[in-house]
């Protein structure tokens, strides 16, 4: 994990020494509701297991509570493998923070993300034994809180699909209508659940608008997941991991397409972020400032993000250890960092 800082221009970045060595950091999070924002890092050591660290001094020091911050109940027989996602709750509940983990489960904190409890309603869902692990593991990797209603929440898991609650997590229902499981027999391609969703992104002030990148398939919902429609016109491929809705314009969306699951590389070996200006109706490549030949790296599901600032910055990191930034909605990109370890997750915020 590495912290990079810039002044208000966001044009020149200074990288600090690598932290949380010998661990893979899949789940970075920033809780902007606090001043200063609280940072989170879900880190897993192959030897010493997973944990969740937090920082209240913008990444200068990291700590964790004495008791395990995220752990399955004793006697459940289930052990935490990895924290994949940290997601602050809506503004109306400033101490509510969610964690999505492997194996498939959602945790909730009511103390700002220091200690978490299992959301039993999802853990005990009758579909759970039938959820399959994706290639990365049996992970709940996406949490989309409703910005004004803390009882409503949407999660996405591989490979179970999208699920929603409207009663604060007591009961959950799948929300995959219109999303295809291409690998199933033809008459079973639109199952109730089991889709391999890779990421869902929402717009902060238009919660009904969602974009999803699936394991083959890019989809849009305009009703918070009641139904989905494919939006792939103009894409070179419909496989990939990340998706991001621009915080300033719900019709502007970013993707990083890959050829296929059997060829997880960018089409034509060019580093291109695809952008839509019409909610996925049409797509165009953005290339300025990005390598346009011999490019063999990829962007993982949590490595594309925004800082949610005025004149929002868009950021992505690659498995080749680069981080790029755009301050003009993808018209041009600048390299923030290179030669890092493989980038699993990127988060950014403007503070002060």
């Amino acid at each position, binding site marked *: 994990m590495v912290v990079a800082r810039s002044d208000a221009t966001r044009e020149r970045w200074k990288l600090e020494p690598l932290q*949380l060595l*010998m661990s893979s950091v899949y789940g970075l999070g920033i809780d902007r509701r606090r001043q200063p924002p609280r940072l989170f890092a879900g880190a897993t050591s192959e*030897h*010493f*297991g997973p944990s969740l660290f937090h920082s209240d001094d913008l990444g200068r020091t990291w700590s*964790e509570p*004495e008791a395990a911050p995220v752990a*399955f109940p*004793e006697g459940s027989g289930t052990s*935490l493998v990895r924290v994949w996602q940290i997601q602050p709750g809506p503004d109306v509940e400033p101490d509510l923070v969610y964690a999505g983990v492997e194996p498939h489960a959602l945790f909730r904190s009511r103390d700002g993300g220091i200690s978490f409890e299992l959301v039993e309603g999802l853990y005990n869902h009758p579909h759970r034994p039938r959820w399959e692990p994706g290639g990365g593991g049996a992970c709940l990797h996406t949490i989309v809180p409703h910005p004004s209603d803390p009882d409503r929440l949407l999660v996405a898991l591989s490979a179970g699909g999208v699920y929603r609650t409207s009663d604060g997590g007591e009961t959950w229902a799948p929300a995959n209508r219109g999303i295809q499981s291409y690998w199933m027999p033809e008459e079973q391609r639109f199952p109730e659940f089991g889709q391999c969703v890779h990421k869902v992104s929402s717009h902060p002030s238009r919660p009904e608008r969602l974009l999803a990148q699936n394991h083959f398939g890019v989809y849009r919902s305009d009703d918070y997941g009641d139904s989905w429609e494919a939006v792939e016109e103009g894409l070179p491929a419909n496989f990939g991991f990340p998706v991001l809705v621009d915080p300033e314009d719900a019709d502007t969306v970013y993707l990083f397409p890959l050829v296929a699951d059997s060829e997880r590389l960018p089409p034509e070996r060019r580093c291109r972020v695809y952008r839509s200006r019409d909610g996925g109706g049409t797509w165009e490549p953005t290339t300025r400032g990005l390598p346009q030949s011999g490019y063999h790296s990829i962007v993982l599901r949590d490595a594309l993000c925004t800082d949610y600032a005025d004149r929002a910055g868009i950021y992505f990191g690659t498995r080749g250890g680069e981080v790029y930034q755009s301050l003009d909605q993808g018209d041009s990109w600048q390299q923030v960092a290179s030669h890092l370890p493989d980038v699993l997750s990127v988060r950014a915020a403007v503070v002060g």
Partner: protein
Amino acid sequence: MSAELHLPASLRASTPGPSVVELEAETVGGALDQLRLSWPQLERRIRDEQGRLRRHLRLYLGELDVADLQGLATSLPEGSRLYVIPQVSGG
């Protein structure tokens, strides 16, 4: 029985704590229970929340892997030395 639990340097690199902990326990699992009382952050690096030894760690009682004895139920003779050994398989 009194025992010494020796912790690897690679653990202390990420979690502050001593290199050797003196414990009173009858079994290997009991020793880790004792560790949990005094050093909870260290104990949960060694066992998960269900009390299982982490996958890429080994516990040695002297020169013997407790997995080849009775696991966490292995009795501790007076003056035992227990070693937490990170396996190469974990990187």
